[in-house]
């Protein structure tokens, strides 16, 4: 064993090096002065879900109120009520779409299971509010964000989604066209039923 005290001296040298290093090496002094500057979130970052809409914040929502996300949501923070028409028939859009993001645990499962790419994860994290109740219970209108926003925060992923949707739409249209062609030839068929893609 070496001289007693050498271990302590080694430690002292190490801390002294870090002390000096913190003045010269940004690798050591990694702290960011947060409110003034903040690190940009990585592209994959996720925080809370939002609803994607195309063009119109209300009408353009991609959500069809299928409630898969409500069922799969582990902490069960999603609450969906589908829109009904006057006759009580279920329409394929939500009347109420609430997420209690004080309960939400950012797991992304809603976004993953959604067959319609209607719900995606936001990167916004500065969510402090002054009110204790209700401020973090987000309603449909709070949750609705445009597809442009989605493209901005997750460019790669959004591009994939857009491509997939476009492909879907193209396939649908092709199918519809084919059906229309088929229907047009035998008889007049009810037309707009196939218009189910948002």
């Amino acid at each position, binding site marked *: 064993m*070496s001289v*007693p*005290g*050498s*271990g*302590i001296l*080694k*430690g002292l*040298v*190490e*801390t002294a090096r*870090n002390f000096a290093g913190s003045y010269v090496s940004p690798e*050591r002094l*990694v702290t960011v002065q947060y409110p003034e500057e903040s690190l940009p*979130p*990585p*592209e*994959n*970052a*996720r925080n809370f879900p939002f609803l994607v809409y195309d063009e119109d914040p209300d009408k353009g929502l991609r959500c069809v109120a299928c409630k*898969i996300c409500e*069922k*799969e*949501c*582990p902490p069960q923070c999603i609450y969906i009520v589908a829109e009904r028409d006057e006759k009580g028939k279920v329409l394929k859009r939500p009347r109420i779409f609430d997420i209690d993001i004080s309960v939400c*645990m*950012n*797991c*992304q*499962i809603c976004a*993953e*299971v959604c*067959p319609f790419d209607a719900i995606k*994860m936001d990167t916004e994290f500065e969510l402090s509010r002054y009110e204790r109740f209700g401020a973090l219970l987000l309603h449909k209108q709070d949750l609705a964000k445009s597809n442009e926003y989605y493209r901005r925060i997750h460019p790669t992923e959004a591009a994939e989604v857009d491509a997939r949707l476009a492909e879907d739409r193209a396939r649908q249209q092709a199918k519809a066209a084919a059906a229309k062609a088929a229907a047009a030839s035998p008889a007049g068929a009810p037309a707009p039923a196939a218009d189910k893609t948002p």
Partner: protein
Amino acid sequence: MSAAPPSAPLPAGAAIDRDLLEISLGPHHPSTHGVFRMDVVLDGERVVRLKPVFGYLHRNHEKLAEGMTYLSSMPFTDRLDYFCSMTNNWAYALAVEKLAGLQVPDRAQYIRVIVGELTRLLNHACLIGFLTHDMGAMGTPLMYAFREREKILDLFESLSGSRMMCNYMRFGGCRVDLSPAWLQAARKVVDDFPRFLDEFDALLTTNEIVMTRSQGVGILPRELAINASVTGPMLRASGVDYDLRKVDRYGIYDRFDFRVPLGEHGDVYDRIMIRFLEMRESLTILRQALREIPPGPILDPKSKLRGFRPRAGEVYGRIEAPKGELGFYLVSDGSPNPYRYRVRPPSLINLTILEDMCLGQLVADAVIILGSVDIVLGEVDR
């Protein structure tokens, strides 16, 4: 100072005429690593009885899981040992894959190894930081560990979207593929890590005070460790060669060349040093994995997100998590929800021998012994 009332039953071995002092360390105490409580009876400063009290963080995890789909439980596993969400995911995914007979593609296996070993690095580094903080090191080692941990967490965030609650693995693979840029960043982190380890080494391993504090303290004998089914670095520090990566060879661990360090005395110092050495071994695994990772798919095509119903049966899947053997026991009746869901948390089981290690030691020792067990209350209480 109040003595234990004379009518109270005295612990075995306490001299009758001693004045015993009963203090409650926790649940709000700086060194109990969460809301954990130790009812300690002291003779002077010597521990004569120690009762661990936990359950303050109980979240009904196992019962909840029986009421939700297999996938929905995945993010909850993140919250078991919230330092090591990746390995938690992995253990759960492994169990479900066994149940459903899914095959994980090669690339996903590599990714799992990479994130798993990164998790081990960050867990061990922080644990040593916490432990020395318990010894009173004013958090300097802890801050260094956190500095390095940030780098790994950055990697996790850019991979999975979240720093700690990754929810990254899926049955039959992983959720997102990693990019070449990510691989580059990971290599840099791995290459930089030894420098940090050397720094740690200089700061701690031959430090006389650390050695004096931790050598010969909290000895866990080999037999007791085995009998109490202690696992992980704790067990290996007591000299038992038992590492699931070698024993089960789950995943693709048989493709990597690494060694398992073993302790000899089973004291706190050994536990620190075993974790040190394991970090170095993890780095060799990481280098190999980052070098050899193949291209390909990352998810078994048979896997499906919605309407996942494994066949009926029961299964136990386990991995070598940083804290020890983490196992999931699942019973399926063929429905979308597990019939029974049970976690074998290493923290809890390693904690059961706390009293045995602490008896006859001083309070200050009890604190670092608890630290050296490496618990996370999320996992202990579930």
